[in-house]
């Protein structure tokens, strides 16, 4: 918000056109709107979020069953008028399970990405702001963790929590996924802290933490948001992988990854159990990635004028 002045005073006389300054955010938004793929992705994401969060509730309200309701005698039927996506081995409605699974996957993705972004931002900001030896030490720690296999660490973390529930899942993913954010933020802060507005704040006696939170972090929001939008889909993928290993969400709760895992087991006999969750996952990931790419392009100063 340091960039660009707000609405300039109207120029008097001659009925001249109104000239308005454009803030970074307005500029970015304008360019994002011009990016058709990003807009389709965003609309799609919103639609999916809407469906995933309201769908299961609606199904329960209207038809009286949920993602966990079994009808053993009605197991493994292909798609039909009553169950659009068919039913699984236990006679559970696959559509409801895909929607609920999408809800879980989205939740895990968003929360894990939030945890990662928060931890990474704070860590990177402190490291960059303090500089010198502290910076050196903090960044070496990041390097060491970065050198370890990612999934290995997540699995250890989940094992330490001694529980495979949603919370341990996104905390586990987030606690390991913050490294890149920390590096990006630190780089930004290193250059920002030499700028005049920071010196001004210091000369007015603003304390270190306040400087970081009030002045430095807001100025790095651009890259953080970009990285965040790209982290969400990758977290969803990681969750799918963990579900594959049996460390993800626990039955009877589905996540898209768990559904795909189950479906892959019997794809030669019950194809619909693989096709629908896999399609849902693909659509969701594509949409989120388009949004992420669009936001990155929109916020990138180098892209300005080329959009």
């Amino acid at each position, binding site marked *: 918000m340091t960039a660009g002045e707000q609405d300039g005073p109207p120029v008097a006389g001659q009925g001249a056109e109104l000239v308005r300054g454009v803030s970074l955010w307005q500029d970015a938004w304008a360019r994002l709107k011009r990016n058709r793929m990003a807009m389709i992705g965003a609309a799609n994401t919103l639609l999916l979020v809407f469906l995933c969060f309201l769908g299961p509730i609606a199904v329960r309200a209207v038809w009286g069953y949920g993602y966990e309701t079994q009808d053993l*005698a009605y197991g493994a039927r292909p798609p039909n008028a009553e169950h659009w996506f068919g039913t699984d081995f*236990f006679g559970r409605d696959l559509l409801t399970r895909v929607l609920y699974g999408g809800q879980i996957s989205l939740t895990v993705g968003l929360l894990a990405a939030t945890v990662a972004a928060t931890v990474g931002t704070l860590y990177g900001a402190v490291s960059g702001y303090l500089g010198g030896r502290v910076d050196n030490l903090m960044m070496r720690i990041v390097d060491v963790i970065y050198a370890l296999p990612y999934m290995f660490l997540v699995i250890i973390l989940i094992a330490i929590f001694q529980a495979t529930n949603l919370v341990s899942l996104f905390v586990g993913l987030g606690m390991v996924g913050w490294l890149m954010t920390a590096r990006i933020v630190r780089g930004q802060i290193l250059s920002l802290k030499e700028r005049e507005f920071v010196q001004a704040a210091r000369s007015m006696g603003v304390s270190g933490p306040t400087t970081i939170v009030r002045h430095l972090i807001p100025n790095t929001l651009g890259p953080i948001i970009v990285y965040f939008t790209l982290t969400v889909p990758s977290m969803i993928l990681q969750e799918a992988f963990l579900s594959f290993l049996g460390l993800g969400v626990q039955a009877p709760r589905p996540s898209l990854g768990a559904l795909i895992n189950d479906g892959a087991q019997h794809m030669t*006999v019950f194809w619909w159990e693989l096709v629908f969750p896999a399609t849902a996952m693909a659509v969701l990931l594509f949409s989120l990635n388009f949004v992420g790419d669009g936001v990155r392009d929109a916020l990138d100063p180098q892209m300005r004028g080329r959009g």
Partner: protein
Amino acid sequence: MLLACVEVFFGFACERADPRFYGTTRPKHGADEVWYCLVSEPEWLDPSKASDSASGTVITNVFEGLLQANPKTLEPVPGVAHGWEVFDGGRRYRFHLRDSQWSDGVPVTAHDFEFAWKRLLNPKTASRYATFLYPVRYGEEAHRRALRISGLTAQVTEAQVRAFVGGQSDIEKVVMAPEQRSAFVHLQAPEGQTGVEHTRGVITRLKGRALAGRPVRVSMTDVSVVGVKALSDHILEVTLTDPLPYFLSIVSFYSTMPLPRHLFKRLEAEGIPQPLWTRPEHIVSNGPYRLSEWAFRQYIVLEKNPRYWDAEHVRIRKVRLPMVESYNTVLNLYKAGELDHIGEAALPSEFMDHLEGFQDFRRANYLATYFLWVNTGAPPLDNPLVREALSLSIDRESLVKYVARGGQIPTRDMVPGGVGGYRSLGRKLFDPEAARAALTKAGYGPGNPLPPITYRYNTAEAHKQIAEAVQQMWKEHLGIEVGIENQEWKVYLKQLEAHEFQLARLGWIGDYADANTFLEILRSTSGNNHSNWRSPTFDGMLDRANGTLDRAHRLELLREAEAFAMQHNPVIPMYVYTRSELIKPYLRGAYLNYQTRTYFKYMWIDERYYDGTPEPLPDGLPRVPKPILPGGSGSPELPRAPKPILPAGSGSPSASGPDGGATRGPDAGRSSLGESRP
């Protein structure tokens, strides 16, 4: 990844497949090999310690006991012992050993058996199967380290012994052993003290005291008193407390196989830890095969043992045992010809309807129960009403029909009906009303929900399906939330042993065709009892039943014992297994018996199968050795081998396929005393 899949499917499509069979019908290996799926990593290859079906399969083929079993009927037939005599109305057996060698050329002697049996009973071995040899005289006393009072005169009575010890400790039971001039006293240790500590204390206090006016010696019982003795290198004599109808089946079971004493001595001299003796570089065995490779969690390779006494009849020279836990992978491997026999693996239930149409599909009865161990040690499952509620609210009929799908027999009893003439309890299978009432009576309901409980299974799709279905049934009928959790087989067994679980599935494969094999695991001293439910009353009932000579009366007593145990629900049975197998048409001599007992030495690859002139199927029974009576002439009482009886419901032993097949495995739990089928 994608490309690989495409290739695989393309490959299937291209093969000139015989549509009557599932997948390829040509072996991918030489005519002297078998590829058999072991499913999971064997826990122990040490006969004294093993209890799971994967270990059992390897041990059964690598070692040979006094007797072995007919691979089809499981009747005991001669093994290392070529004949046996019975004395004292079935209380004393004398086994005559043939000349045979360990795989390093050292002769196998009766001393190797004596050593192995005593090691099994030694509490330091920590065998789960020690109770197996309790029928051997003083076996129980040795294993439980009873108090031994020796140096008694023949006139000393039990009452005098009780009076002598009585002041120092509660007494569980006294066993008089006049021929040893001893008495064995089972003490009851007070809370918070182990049995051994307590006995030690009592010994110090009794030292130097006189019994009936005479000095006596007080000590802790060790295995030297056990009624098994090598009379010579070729004769082993076994004394039993009471005649036991199924004793010869015990002798053909892998826990009683001989151990290479000379190897143990050598390892000790070289300072190599004893547990390493089963590694391929050390192991010495006496069976038809020897262990040649063991790649952890990947595969085991067995090779023919040229020193085996019957080596000329062993046709398969190499057995490859891959460990594949995923049933779907097993099925695909079988289809592609990477397995000749799905072995211990179960078939995925969702494929069952599809597979039943193929000619290489076989189904047989199976003496095994699928059940949940309930850890009765901790709340809320220490409350019998809660256990009753859980047990009664499982809709077993649906579970079997729609989830397990293998024609299994739903049951709420531990012992499958029909075993050795046993009449099953026939407890009511499903009663949600009564279940809810029991839960309410236990004080749980909407206002006071049941604390969270966890249902655990060993990683396998089939168990997961059962778990998910049961989880939902409990939610629907009792309104309770149960978490489910999976673990790798070996870890799973360790946690069972440590009682670190609440509900955990297991399959128990009967070790012999007698109800006792299923009830024995509920005995308080059994290493296979994972429930924390220990009842001296139940132990007493089992002892009384097994000490009864009249068959009908004995079965009735066993039935009473089961009824007593099941009242407390230390286990929640679900169904009696069936075995559904896929065996390639070119693999012959693979029999389906009612246990997971597979003998590779009877198998062969039928090369004429390809020319369209397959060898005629064997007439049903394999060629097995016949007992040779010692001395030739005399006719000692030859015990009649117990007739194996198949699990409930159906039919005669011939219910297995045309030429039999071997076992399958892993959906289960412990076999032999059940190996647990993983």
